[in-house]
């Protein structure tokens, strides 16, 4: 992944980078407090937009240039790990991201709130006549039934959290079978 797809002049696929992404100062935290606040707000929004656009669920927070958004080769600027940490932590604080572990080397970005994901999942289950049926977590990520839907390739952690949310509403239950079995989700008819 090291230095993977480097982007051109402000485009990544069909994603158009904002103008501030072309300005070197934005790649270092500004000393003036107000300016910095504005800067961090812009970055926060950009990270979410970028992840939503590319359906990225995990953002690496390391020293390496392993995330195109954090590295602009055209102006030879990159975010330092500290800045990345700060920006992602902003997201975590507003509930749009989750640290995977204490080392904080990658984070789960929730560009859709868990509750919304839960609705998407339940809607999908209903649409496929899966109420009262069992599907494996794997099937919900890569199965034929999710191909072409928003669920395709959904990160397991997001999926599990969304299912737990459904569990709270009495609409689904996550369970595991015998030893060596995959995890399964059973959907229930909502009342």
């Amino acid at each position, binding site marked *: 992944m090291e230095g993977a797809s480097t982007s051109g002049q402000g485009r990544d696929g069909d994603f158009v980078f904002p103008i501030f992404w072309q300005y070197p100062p934005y790649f270092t935290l500004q000393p003036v407090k107000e300016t910095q606040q504005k800067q961090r707000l812009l970055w926060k929004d950009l990270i979410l937009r970028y992840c939503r656009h590319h359906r990225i669920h995990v953002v690496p927070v390391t020293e390496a240039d392993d995330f195109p958004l954090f590295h602009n080769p055209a102006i030879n600027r990159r975010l330092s790990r500290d800045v990345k940490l700060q920006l992602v932590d902003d997201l975590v604080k507003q509930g749009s991201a989750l640290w995977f572990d204490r080392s904080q080397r990658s984070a789960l970005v929730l560009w859709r709130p868990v509750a919304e994901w839960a609705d998407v999942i339940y809607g999908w289950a209903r649409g496929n006549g899966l109420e*009262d*049926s*069992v*599907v*494996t977590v*794997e*099937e919900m990520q890569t199965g034929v039934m999710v191909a072409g839907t928003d669920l395709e390739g959904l990160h397991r952690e997001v999926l599990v959290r969304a299912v737990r949310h459904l*569990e709270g509403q*009495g609409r*689904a*239950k996550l*369970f*595991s*079978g*015998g030893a*060596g*079995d*995959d995890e*399964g989700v*059973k959907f*229930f008819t909502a*009342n």
Partner: protein
Amino acid sequence: MGAAASKKKKLEINEVDRAVLTLKTQARKLEQQRTRIQGNVDRELAVAKELVASGRKERALLALKRKKLQEGQAARLDAWLLNVEEMLLNLETAKNQQRLFAALKEGTSAVKEMQTALPLEEVEQLMQDGADAKEYEDSLRQMLGESLNAEEAEAAAEELQQLEAQLMDEQQLELPRAPDAALPAAPQAEQQAAAGEAAEELLAELPSVPQTRPVALPAGKEAAAAEEAEAERVLVAA
């Protein structure tokens, strides 16, 4: 029904759900193996082609044999996968049947419940009570009526007499007009119907005679012959 279902709902995972999960896991693993084997098959084929091209026939043959082996395994995997899928379908069917049966049972018990809420004896009792009430009311009205309408009853009886007399007068006035109605058609139809009936009666009686008394032939011969002749006559007439 809906209330009962939601009350019972506790997000429970039953044995069937676990079985489905196990089967689905197996299916995924089989699929995985199948992909791997297919890779082997493709590789052996590529190797064989290369060996043939470089003229090393024996090695190529070996590669092809290995490919055959892998293909056999692939076929087996396919069969197992089909089995697993069939089993999953069977489970689904059984589940549906169970659900359908439960629904039907629920319906039947609901009907029964409604019926027991309305026992025949009670209906009978209800009707009886109604009749009793009516009777009571009638007798009450009668009693009250008698006590109250002694004079009125007399007046009513008088009025009845008057009405009857009036009716008699009207009938007498109307009597002469009767013959005007179409008379001639009726007698013919009646006669014909009567004749037909008589013939039918005769015909119905006749056949039974020869069957019941086959022994008394000499004595009854003449009579039978006479009867036969008569029957013929009747038939012709009819």
